[in-house]
């Protein structure tokens, strides 16, 4: 498998009246073709901003995106003009969002919203692109696709709308699909349906998926590789099995211990992470997790640990891993 996406030292800063907010702070990783990469982190950890920065969908200003390079299929996205980017967006790289209720345009038919993207990127005529839209709706499991294509988003349930979003995203056979908390707003049984659908379709379309979520369970079921983010930084990157079996970073470990699990002894006491995530406006010097870290030592408060190889295929940003 070849590399599809290489991100090197990505920085995204929001310039606000209160000060500069380093939402993404030096993130580097690689994604291979067809693989599913999970990005996990709490709200404000920078996982969504990372995705939006790669798509360059953030308004600049206030955002400022810098970095060494973001190579997508050999081209540097950071160097591209908006026109070049537009040719890629929705075509070779597509995105779906957290809230299916608000992500579709309420005044256009869903068929139109899919066909629009197809027409733009695949050079098809109106009829062919409409047919493609119906075909996609059928593929994502919407019954009576030909009729439903003429319906408006408000006539669909939340789960069905997320299916429509997936249809839009996959309509031009993208090589990368970025899914930003795609099931967070959905009920558990509907979440299971959507995850099942994503699994099946990404296999069928050979699409690499960047799956952003705060739910470690979703990661465990979907991803091959995982990135763990905390306060704008990558703190751990490894394959999924290693992450759950042998987490290197104290934050990852703490996270795994703090969630109630279906398979633990039932009334075992949870081990919460003390304190609160840091204020990005006033980032502590040194490791940003140090104030909450049980293993923190003097060095952690002075220096920022770099993300380094700590085991086979496992990288962590910690001076005292495991």
């Amino acid at each position, binding site marked *: 498998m070849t590399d599809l996406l290489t991100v090197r030292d990505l920085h995204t800063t929001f310039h606000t009246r209160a000060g500069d907010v380093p939402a993404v702070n030096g993130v580097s990783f690689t994604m291979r073709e067809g693989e599913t990469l999970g990005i996990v982190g709490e709200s404000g950890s920078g996982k969504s901003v990372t995705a939006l920065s790669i*798509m360059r*969908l953030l308004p600049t200003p206030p955002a400022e995106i810098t970095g060494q390079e973001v190579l997508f299929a050999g081209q540097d996205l950071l160097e591209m003009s*908006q026109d070049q*980017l*537009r*040719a*890629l*967006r*929705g*075509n070779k790289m*597509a*995105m779906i*969002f957290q*809230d299916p209720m*608000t*992500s*579709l*345009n*309420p*005044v*256009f038919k869903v068929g139109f919203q899919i066909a*629009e*993207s197809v027409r*733009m*990127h695949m050079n098809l005529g109106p009829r062919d692109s409409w047919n493609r839209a119906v075909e996609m709706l059928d593929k994502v499991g919407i019954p009576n696709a030909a009729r439903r294509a003429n319906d*408006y988003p*408000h006539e669909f349930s939340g789960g069905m709308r997320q299916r429509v*979003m997936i249809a*839009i995203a996959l309509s031009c056979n993208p090589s990368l699909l970025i899914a930003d908390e795609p099931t967070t707003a959905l009920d558990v049984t509907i979440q299971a349906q959507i995850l099942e659908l994503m699994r099946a379709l990404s296999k069928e379309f050979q699409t690499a998926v960047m799956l952003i979520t705060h739910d470690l369970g979703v990661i465990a079921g979907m991803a091959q590789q995982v990135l763990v983010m905390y306060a704008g930084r990558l703190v751990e990157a490894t394959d999924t099995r290693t992450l759950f079996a042998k987490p290197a970073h104290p934050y990852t470990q703490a996270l795994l211990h703090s969630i109630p699990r279906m398979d633990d002894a039932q009334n075992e006491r949870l081990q919460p992470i003390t304190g609160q995530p840091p204020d990005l406006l006033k980032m502590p010097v040194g490791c940003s997790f140090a104030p909450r870290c049980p293993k923190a030592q003097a060095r952690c408060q002075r220096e920022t640990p770099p993300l380094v190889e700590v085991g086979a295929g496992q990288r962590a940003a910690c001076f005292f891993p495991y």
Partner: protein
Amino acid sequence: MLRFFLRRLIGLLFVVIGVTFVTYAMGYLAPNQDPIAALLGQHNTPQAYATLKHEYGLDKPWYIQYGTFLLNLAHGNLGLSYRYPGQSVNDFIGPAIAISIQLGLSALILALVLGIPSGIIAALRANTWVDTSLMSVMLFFYAVPAFVIIPFYQVLIDILVANNLPTLPVQGWSEGLTYKIVPVVILALTSMGYFARISRTVMLEVLRQDYVRTARSKGLSERRVIYLHAFRNALLPLLSVIGPSLAFLVSGAFVIEDLFNIPGVGGAAIQAVANRDWPVLQGTVVVLAVAVVIMNIVVDILYSVADPRIRIQ
């Protein structure tokens, strides 16, 4: 669709009855109103008085008078003037309506055509000098009433005339197109400022929505994102403020018609007040209220066409 119209017609009926009743009650309660004596003037004899009073139906109890008025209204007959014997209110208001519609609609269209794009431009350039200066001008137009602008304009004309520069005439609505420009523009200013400010707010709100981000994530051109996906949604709240904004237009029309001697409904209403010509004033009230309600129905229909979520079967 039928049910919708039925419901709106009932609403219209309710408004007409309410408005006429209030108007009627006011007239009934107001002191010093003896139109018959005023009409007769020095020819006032008890016999003539009684005859005329009967002719105008004023000898009957108030609810019969009101009922008669409503009945006549249903036939499009607004009654007789108190001031000019033998003239019907229809004679007064009939030609005035056409003129007021011309004035009002031209101003509304002008306000929309200039106001909405200004608001959108300001929103797209939010917090730049373009936005700030454009919106300051629009706030000025919105806040400053026509009757204040007119003196400034007249002073300007005098200066232009004194220097032998061309001017646009202000008096003489019926004389030709050039005579209509200034009143229409001045009437449009307030609404234009209003639409510009609302458009800016609405557009900024829409641009923040998730579906705009979705449209961008599909790789659509910025033009398409803004003028198709965003604007189509911004249209909905804009449509819904047109109804309430008619109030500015009608208030403005009073002043404009009065000051520019335009023989419209507003002018007729003010004349009627000065003349204590009760039926004429009542007629203008009814006509204007119905006009506003009809405009609101039109806006509602447009809205339901524009928004699939409330589209009528």
